């Protein structure tokens, strides 16, 4: 998968779960500070990402993913290693 496809799919998840406008889901945006995504929704987003990309995001990693770009990079990295 290309990074831009992962980003677009991840933006879809953000919209579906947390109502984030895909136009706002820029890589540098912080989930909590910019996009208003709370911790419960982050858990839901991680599960939806697992379904979409087949990439399981452990809790220890999830808390480190502060921005949209962090999450997309993480998913891309795991997919590349697979």
């Amino acid at each position: 998968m290309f990074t831009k496809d992962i980003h677009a799919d991840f933006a879809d998840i953000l919209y579906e779960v947390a109502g984030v406008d895909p136009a706002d889901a820029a890589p540098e945006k912080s989930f909590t500070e910019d996009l208003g995504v709370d911790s419960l929704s982050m858990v839901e987003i991680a599960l939806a990402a697992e379904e979409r990309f087949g990439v399981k995001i452990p809790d220890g990693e999830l808390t480190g993913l502060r921005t949209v770009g962090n999450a997309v990079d993480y998913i891309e990295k795991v997919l590349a290693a697979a």
Partner: protein
Amino acid sequence: MTAKSAAVFRAGRRDDAGRLTRARRDDIVVTGLGASTPLGGDVASTWAGLLDGRSGASAIGAGWARDLPARIAARVAVEPDTALERVAARRLDRCQQLAVVAGRQAWTDARLPRVGEGGIEAERLAVVIGSGIGGVLTLLGQHDVLIERGSRWVSPHMVPMLLPNGPAAAVALDLGARAAVHTPVSACASGAEALALGLDLLRSGRADVVLAGGVDAAIHPVTLAGFAQMRALSTRNDEPAAASRPFDKSRDGFVMGEGAGVLALEWASAAAVRGATPYAVFAGAGVTADGHHITAPDPNGTGAARAITLALRDGDLSPQDVRHVNAHATSTPAGDVAEAKAIRSAIGDHPVLTAPKSALGHLLGGAGAVEAIATVLTVRDDVVPPTRNLDDPDDAVGLDVVRMSPRRMAVPAAVNNAFGFGGHNVALAFHKL
């Protein structure tokens, strides 16, 4: 606003001839109504449905109902998520969605300004929403997820969605209320108990405005099976609109419904200051317990009668003032007759009754609040909605129950009853402004 003492509250409700006087500045009044019910998505359509004697019940056609003895339900007329933002709706259980919809309506209807503006302080706004069962549909749905996919896939939103206090918390969060937020849980009396508690919050000075009501949304094979095992549900499956028939000789149980009702309560003086037009005075409440059996009503209606008497005393009303009772009457063989006995002993033979569950079905925790709304509108408009399906009144009732068409009559004061499994009895008294 400071706390009102009971002495001030009770002072001078009558003229020298003992007649009821107009609302005093220190009455508690109902200034806003909101509802989503099987008869309509708001109060106007619900009230029109009650006056028309429409039924909100229908057969459950889904395959899962095939093996149930009772396959009738009264679902809300308007799906609540259609009135909510998509993302907000998916984090709310169905009962929370209904409560938020009704809460917004009550707030708008009362013409209350945004919290923080126009003298409405968040810290002085309380919310009391009762529920009999809470987010049971979420719990059951997530149990299916657990079994089918495993614990990792259970929703992180499940717990706040299933909590019984979820509807009250959701309404408070939606409107910005930061005073007390309560959830009375007393089965089918929950909505009425919320109103009784709302009265107390205003009288004790713990809030200036209270949104109070009740909700349940629990139509599911398991709940239907459980109530059916108690032999509490009507099995008149071929005639769903005729199944709920309170006070009729051939009644055989209630029809499970879903829905929410919310009322805005405030001091008459505060309502007058902001130019609001109240619907009626919320005069008093009585709350008792049967102490008889966990589910069966006391056959003599003693606890219910005490609740009515307490409500009248609390509201400084005499039995003669009460011309109308909006009955709890669920259409069960034992309950309806016990309630009639209670009404006769606490008020007399003169009140004219209606049984709104004949049209609405039984909204469980929502019933007391939605039916209080109907009572308030009867007091304001001097019209009593008909009781559906009352073809052959039970001789043991011994009271005048309106049927066929609405009855226009003077209603200076009225009582609304709500009872719940557990032996809970709540009576609410309203009178004209």
